[in-house]
């Protein structure tokens, strides 16, 4: 602590020499270190601190620590303040900060007080470690995703975000409809996490993956002796989801017999395990998802109408990735970021050509397919930018030929902008707010451009 205090205070040449020696040491470690004075102004900021926060030392020194560090605890429960007030250090407290790219970075922080020769507290020191890689792995294992993991600036998705809290608050059954890989489970999890049942269990059942008989015992459980191999009672998923949420994926794939059984649970709020005659109350929120058009299945007589109305109390329709192409660059960056964290590679992004290919590709497998494509390219990429040769062959083959560079009048930026604005306005029937959101610019910018190009 004395070293740091010296770094902070002394202007004596001997101290400066010593300090530069210690500064080399502090700059060589992987942990971020900064010190503050009694007015919470930063007095020292090491190289790792610059790297983790993305703030250069010159910009950090002299500013209030909370305006540089941007941790979630800064405004409500500052660890340094607690340490300086109580004299007690904080060890390995998990927090998160927001970096210059708006990303939340999980950190582990420790704090201690700085004293002068007389023992007076002159400030504090905070050290911190980047936990991104560990947290990423943890999330990968536990699949603990939140609505903040849904990456989109698409208007339709933003509209869903607006109603999501109300949906979550209610007890109504939700039907999430969307093609495979469009993120249905992520939305189901988000609803659960925002609901009053968030502390209860969240149980996922893929109805399409199990044959009828197995599905019944999976959902409702069985009692000892129900069938030859039933040596003891086994609770079903509905029982496990008690006071929580059950997510029934691929609901459109269940048989008519199962549909009847499910209808009973939804109507009566009770079920009977296989082989039992005693009904069990089910206090469970049900969220269903399908990649099929259930209303059409009802028309075709393949899905019970009464069950359809039971599960279709609130319907969320997720667009395919091909209908939200503006999200493709966001998602590419997100996946690369995640893979960089996991693999310790440092890939900056994709080349313009790759982006052009991906923007034109149809993504039958939606976001999941994009994720796989990026992972494939990431593995093959040895440089810092993903090039077309790193993409899977079928993506290149299935992508419509890239446009040649526009010639003559169409080449200038102005005509391209006019074209983009017109397309967006047509798409949203002249609604400027929605068009601006689609174009990724502000309403006022759109208005200015429309005025300039005589589109008003």
């Amino acid at each position, binding site marked *: 602590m004395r070293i740091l205090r010296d770094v902070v205070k002394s202007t004596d040449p001997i101290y400066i020499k010593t300090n530069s020696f210690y500064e080399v040491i502090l700059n060589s470690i992987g942990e971020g270190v900064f010190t503050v004075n009694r007015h919470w102004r930063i007095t020292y900021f090491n190289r790792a601190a610059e790297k983790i926060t993305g703030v250069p030392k010159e910009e950090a020194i002299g500013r209030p620590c909370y*305006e540089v560090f941007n941790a979630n605890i800064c405004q409500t429960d500052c660890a340094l303040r607690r340490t300086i007030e109580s004299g007690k250090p904080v060890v390995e407290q998990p927090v998160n900060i927001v970096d210059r790219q708006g990303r939340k970075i999980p950190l582990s922080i420790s704090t201690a007080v700085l004293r002068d020769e007389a023992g007076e507290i002159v400030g504090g020191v905070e050290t911190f470690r980047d936990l991104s890689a560990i947290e990423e792995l943890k999330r990968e294992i536990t699949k603990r995703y939140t609505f903040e993991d849904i990456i989109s600036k698409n208007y339709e998705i933003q509209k869903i975000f607006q109603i999501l809290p109300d949906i979550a608050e209610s007890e109504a059954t939700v039907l999430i409809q969307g093609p495979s890989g469009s993120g249905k489970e992520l939305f189901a999890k988000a609803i659960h996490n925002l609901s009053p049942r968030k502390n209860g269990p969240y149980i996922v059942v893929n109805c399409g993956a199990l044959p009828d008989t197995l599905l019944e015992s999976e959902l409702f459980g069985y009692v000892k002796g129900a069938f030859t191999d039933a040596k003891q009672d086994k609770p079903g998923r509905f029982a496990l989801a008690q006071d929580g949420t059950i997510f029934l994926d691929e609901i459109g794939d269940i048989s008519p017999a199962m549909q009847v059984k499910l209808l009973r649970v939804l109507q009566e709020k009770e079920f009977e395990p296989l082989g039992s005659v005693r009904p069990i109350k089910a206090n469970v929120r049900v969220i269903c998802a399908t990649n099929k058009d259930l209303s059409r299945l009802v028309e075709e007589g393949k899905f019970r109408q009464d069950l359809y109305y039971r599960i279709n109390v609130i319907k969320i329709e997720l667009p395919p990735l091909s209908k939200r192409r503006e999200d493709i660059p966001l998602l590419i960056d997100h996946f690369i970021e995640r893979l960089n964290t996991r693999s310790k590679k440092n890939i900056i992004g994709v080349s313009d050509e790759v982006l052009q290919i991906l923007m034109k590709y149809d993504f039958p497998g939606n976001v999941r397919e994009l994720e796989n494509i990026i992972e494939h390219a990431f593995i093959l990429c040895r440089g810092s930018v993903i090039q077309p040769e790193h993409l899977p062959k079928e993506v290149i083959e299935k992508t419509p030929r890239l446009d040649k560079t526009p010639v003559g009048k169409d080449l200038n930026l102005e005509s391209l902008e006019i074209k983009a604005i017109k397309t967006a306005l047509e798409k949203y029937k002249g609604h400027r707010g929605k068009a601006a959101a689609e174009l990724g610019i502000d309403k006022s910018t759109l208005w200015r451009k429309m005025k300039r190009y005589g589109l008003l």
Partner: protein
Amino acid sequence: MDFCEAEVLVGIPLFQNRVAPRLDCACEMLVLKVNRKEVKDTRYITLNWHNALLTLNQIKEMGIEVIICGAVPCFIARFLIGNGIKLIPWVSGEWQEALEAFLEGRLEEKFYFFSGPLCKTRKRGWRKNKR
């Protein structure tokens, strides 16, 4: 639309007397009705980030059109911009200073929309010039 000329609701999340360093952790927001570069009305609202989506929807429903704030996570930035709210992030300093700079168009000059893939931002210049 010139935000300084028309009547507009400006939200500034607060921490003590300063622009809150982080929007999604601010407990309080100052909402100012501004017309022709003059503050016509002010009020304080409480922010509860326990349910971020609910809070964001409330901000939107209140009709706030501009938010001057410090750090802001991507998700929240995308939500606000997607709902037509003008976001001026990475502003630090006393809120009166920030408002003054906004009304004089000095924040506008430096403003950078969160339109890039990873909502890349840069530091406001006005604060540094002050020091």
